[in-house]
């Protein structure tokens, strides 16, 4: 059976080698030692706290050096300042709920676009509707993909709408699920010059370890990311970053207060804080620990194997020219809004009528994993290694076939 060409990272990334080892060895450890004090020591102080006999048997856990080290690695990967804060949660949606609460306190009208992930959009609207705040939605996706709106034009559109509707809060994805990479920093700087921008939340679920976040430049207040896509931890874990000097105290104090009050119910966040602070709650909830270890291992893999932008560009060129020659329509935004996600639409009527699952299965039969949508559209997440001859042959064959 030919090797699988995995092009579905935007949905769920292939588990990274270290994450895989950590996951397997932690499962073995759990089977043999359960919740003994060895586990407590290991989680709090890291791999070196284990007796040498155990260390030798579970070398896949060697990357775990404690919560501080995990936070440091997550920070390093996002290019955040060393004093910035990192929150860890069992679900990114929990962090979105926190972000929505943070947004609606100082802001009364929050600008979003139709590029937002619908579930996050709903969380924000629910938070806003409960309190009589407003969420203003700007529709840009169609113009980006069909009319090739440039980054400057997109910035103009967002700034115009923001000022005209008297908005004061902003929620944007850094990269949307269809691969549009927003010029967020430019947008935020523009809005700060032209209006009273009070709080900015960014969704980096599709951006973390995909595009540089450059959080050190403090262009936003709160960033939500996940570990199961481009970071390739496979097990979902939410990560929140904040460190803007103007809002860090507000976020830190409010988060702690809401956790105490129970308004934010996030067991992993609580557990990690306890591990980090040394305090232990007697009647705390039991949490899944595996995401901590796999995410930690995946971050180390990511930091050691920084991906080359040239490879991505070459892969994109190969894929789009191949698709083009076979009649597929390449639904890419303008150059300055592109990411490692490419959308292609089949020229065949039968494909356009076929279900997404049928199309996915057709590609899988040729050892290619990708996402498919209605109307014969497929989403390709470009790999970090160059396409091989076999990859190209498989792609050629899959694109040439009809449903």
């Amino acid at each position: 059976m030919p090797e699988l060409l995995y092009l579905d990272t935007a949905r769920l990334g292939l588990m990274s080698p270290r994450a895989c080892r950590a996951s397997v060895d932690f499962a073995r450890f759990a089977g043999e030692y359960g919740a003994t004090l060895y586990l407590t020591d290991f989680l709090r102080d890291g791999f070196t706290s284990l007796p040498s006999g155990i260390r030798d048997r579970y070398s896949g856990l060697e990357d775990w050096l404690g919560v501080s080290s995990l936070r440091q690695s997550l920070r390093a990967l996002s290019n955040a300042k060393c004093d910035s804060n990192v929150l860890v949660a069992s679900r990114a949606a929990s962090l979105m709920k926190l972000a929505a609460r943070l947004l609606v306190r100082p802001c009364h009208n929050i600008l979003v676009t139709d590029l937002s992930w619908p579930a996050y959009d709903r969380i924000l609207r629910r938070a806003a509707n409960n309190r009589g705040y407003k969420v203003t939605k700007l529709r840009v996706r169609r113009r980006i993909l069909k009319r090739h709106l440039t980054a400057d034009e997109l910035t103009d559109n967002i700034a115009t709408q923001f000022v005209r509707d008297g908005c004061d809060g902003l929620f944007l994805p850094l990269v949307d699920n269809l691969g549009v990479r927003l010029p967020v920093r430019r947008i935020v700087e523009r809005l700060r010059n032209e209006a009273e921008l009070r709080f900015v939340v960014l969704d980096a679920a599709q951006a973390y370890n995909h595009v540089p976040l450059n959080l050190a430049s403090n262009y936003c207040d709160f960033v939500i990311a996940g570990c199961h896509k481009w970071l390739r931890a496979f097990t979902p874990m939410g990560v929140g970053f904040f460190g803007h000097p103007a809002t860090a105290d507000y976020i830190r104090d409010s988060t702690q207060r809401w956790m105490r009050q129970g308004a934010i119910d996030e067991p992993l966040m609580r557990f990690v804080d306890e591990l980090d602070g040394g305090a232990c709650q007697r009647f705390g909830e039991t949490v899944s620990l595996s995401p901590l270890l796999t995410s930690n291992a995946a971050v180390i893999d990511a930091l050691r194997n920084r991906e080359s932008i040239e490879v991505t560009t070459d892969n994109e060129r190969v894929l789009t020219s191949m698709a083009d020659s076979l009649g597929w329509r390449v639904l890419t935004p303008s150059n300055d809004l592109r990411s490692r996600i490419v959308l292609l639409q089949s020229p065949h009527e039968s494909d356009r009528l076929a279900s997404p699952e049928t199309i996915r299965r057709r590609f899988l039969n040729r050892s290619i994993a990708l996402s498919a949508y209605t109307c014969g559209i497929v989403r390709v997440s470009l790999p970090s290694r160059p396409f091989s001859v076999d990859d190209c042959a498989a792609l050629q064959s899959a694109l040439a076939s009809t449903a």
Partner: protein
Amino acid sequence: MDATETTHSEHSSKPLLVSAGLAGLTIAVWAAAPTSFLLGYLCLLVSALIGLVMKTWLEVRARPQQPPLLELLLRLASDPELATLHASLADALKDVSSRTDPTFRKLALSRLNSIVADCALLAKGQVAFTSTESWRVVYEELLRSPGLHLYRSVAYVESAHYWQDGPGQQSTQLNLELHDEGTIRIERTAIIADHLWPASDLFPVDPLHSWLDQQHRYGIWLRLIRESALENDPELLCDFGIYGTRAVGMQTADPAGRTIRFLLDFNFAKIQEAETVWNRLAVYATSYRDLLDQQH
């Protein structure tokens, strides 16, 4: 029985006497006269009745207005709470008027004049609290009232101890609690006397700075203005709060920051005026967030 009651009794019995007389006459005609005469007689009576009703109706319509007292009583009758108060007040006034001691009357008239002045203020939709912190009870009631989502406050701070005494701290705590739980959104503009915020300093002096920082940490949006920035617009130097679109509260404080007078105004025109001032102040203001940005 006095003369007024006798006249009233006479007036009320007249229609009965006329009715009885006409009825007697009708029976006599029915007994003595032929049917055609009786029919003509009845037609005459009905015509007269219609004429009288029309005359009365036109008279009522032609009258420009009901007597003021009658109108007042009718209006109050539709508001049971006020009707009860009115009855109590009328009874009390009647008792006051029955006393003849000149000193008592002088004192009573003076007090009653003061009550009338208060009532006149209430009639204008205003409630005043003088030399008391009891306004904070109403303040809390307003902030907690259903339907209020936005509270905009302008604090004219001439003392570093502004809202630092017991009642002030309680009000601050109430602000933080309501904003934090998302019941209302609070925005505050602080006009700060220059000696409390020297031009060379990024932040105002403590404990004022701490008071502001605490609010910022709860997500309250803060704007700051140096008093000297408003020297060309002295009418903007004021201390007030806008409670949604329901009321405006204007506070006058002594140099130590204690309330001398608090006037609550429920007139929409006043709310609009306050919003205009709020917007004009925004032109001169710097957000607390920007100051924190400059710190780093």
